[in-house]
């Protein structure tokens, strides 16, 4: 069924390569841009990149831990 060009393996590989290039470019652009940090940490090189990535990993891990405690089958309230 998966004959759509967007679902093909080599399209997905190319998308990953393009994504990686864009990621590298947005970080490298930082070299030529003057930021106006309010605090200290927010002026570090590629702050948005590492902070965004780290925040998301932390959020996913936290959600996963909370889920282990609070997850129930979706028929929980039906009974």
């Amino acid at each position, binding site marked *: 069924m998966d004959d759509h060009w967007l679902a093909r393996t080599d399209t997905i590989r190319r998308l990953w390569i393009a994504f990686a290039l864009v990621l590298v470019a947005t970080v490298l652009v930082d070299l030529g841009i003057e930021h106006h940090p309010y605090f200290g940490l927010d002026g570090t090189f590629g*702050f948005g990149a590492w902070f965004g990535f780290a925040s*998301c990993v932390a959020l996913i891990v936290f959600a996963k831990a909370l889920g282990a405690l609070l997850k129930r089958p979706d028929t929980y309230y039906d009974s």
Partner: protein
Amino acid sequence: MTASVVLPPAAVLIVGGLILPLVPARLRAPLLLALPLVTLYLVWQVPDTAVLRWSFLGYELVPVKGDALSRLFATVFALMAFAGALFALNQDRVVELAAALCYAGSAIGVALAGDLITVFLFWETMAIASTLVVWSAGPQARGAGLRYAAIHLFGGVLLMAGIAGEIAASGSLSFAAMTLDSVPRALILAGFLVNAGAPPLSAWLPDAYPESSWSGMVFLSAFTTKAAVYVLLRGFPGTELLIYIGLFMVFYGIVYAILENDMRRILAYSIVNQVGFMVTGVGIGTEMALNGAAAHAFTHIIYKALLLMSAGSVLYMTGKRKCTDLGGLFRTMPLTTVCGIVGALSISSFPLTSGFISKSMISEAAGMQQLAWVWYLLAAASAGVFLHAGIKFPWFVFFQKDSGLRPQEPPWNMRAAMLLFSILCIGIGVVPGPLYAILPYPVAYVPYTASHVVFYLQLLLFSGLAFFLMLGWLQRTLTITLDVDWLYRRLGVVLVRSLDQAADAAWSATVNATRHGTDRLVEAIRRYHGAGGILARTWPTGSMAFWTTVMLAAYLALSYL
């Protein structure tokens, strides 16, 4: 100055909603589309002063009063009513459409209300109308609608008590900025926060909204929570407590949405998350922050409605809501996919979309106030928004896997509504000037600097990287996540049941004891008075004659003495 308005804008939609079910079916569509546009026109005719004054119980009510903040919210509410009506034209449950018009009208009533009593009256109309929108989805929405109504009536009680106390203390009905220094004001704030979806009662929102119909949730997403943001902006700007409440909402929304499987519950959690950004802005309280919160409410109504229209289209065409059942719909629903992605990019505040030019103002205000940890948390949350809504929603619904579903695009009116709001999302993002011009304070903020754009691109693209690298952890399962509503949906039920059993046991014990006592009493009475009892025996006639003779003889003997 003569007031050019004789017709309160809210009345047009409310009266229109009430007569809608009586109108012949062919006139319904024109009426649905015309009423919001007439209302929008009337909103812009309201001058910056109290227009109407009514006497009520010895107080003077000001049902319509204009200023920049009121006009901003009334404008976006009317716009929303128009696009929502367009999207819902093919909804055959007239009750829902009628209730939705009344709901939009009462939200506009709140935005233009010049005194606390008027706020309260429209507030409660909003609660009733929105409950009807939930209920009109059918029998499966009955329980959720009832819980929704109960929470909002409770919020209404808090608000009413607060308003009564405030009027008793100050003697004034006026609705202006307050400091949080008395019990009545705390009650008013609590009443407002219930509608904002603030903790501890956030769960009503993801509980009730996703049970509404495919079109109902589009309306529901817009009015209640944003009317709450409006009253917070008007009544409690700069209240520090709101920073903490807002930040809690921001992260609550993200974490619960990450764990959620139902596409519309994901978007419901993300409403709490987005309102959290606005509440934080109100708490920061500088002109920049208040502008940011107001602008974010405006753009949020549009992109959230767009996201829910796209989810509503999927629900309408497939009848399915769960990520585990969906996937791969981009093949046959390209327009719905693209519109969903535009909404998703806007909510993530991607540069060139409406979210970027509004949300970044709130962060900027936190930075300018040197609120370091607020700024860092907002930045982390911005990345989290892309994670839980920006990628998660389009990925699991439209891509992910081939679910085998091949639904067609929805009818023309639903596509038109999505296109209209997609254009607005990008239009406002590319040309923010007109929105900035109608904000409550002058705007000196420039969103498109190289530093801002690169920062947001890094933040969002790398959260995208985190999403795809950790996809295994994010796979959806057939689960829900317990929330505070567990207290009244499960613990409360268990408590009531055990109370019921205890009452049953106590009752039967009482009945048994009473029956036993009565039995003994009856037995004792029978012993003396019963058929064989000592007092009921028949006495032989002989003994009667004997005793009569004895008495007469005694009488005779005594008479001789």
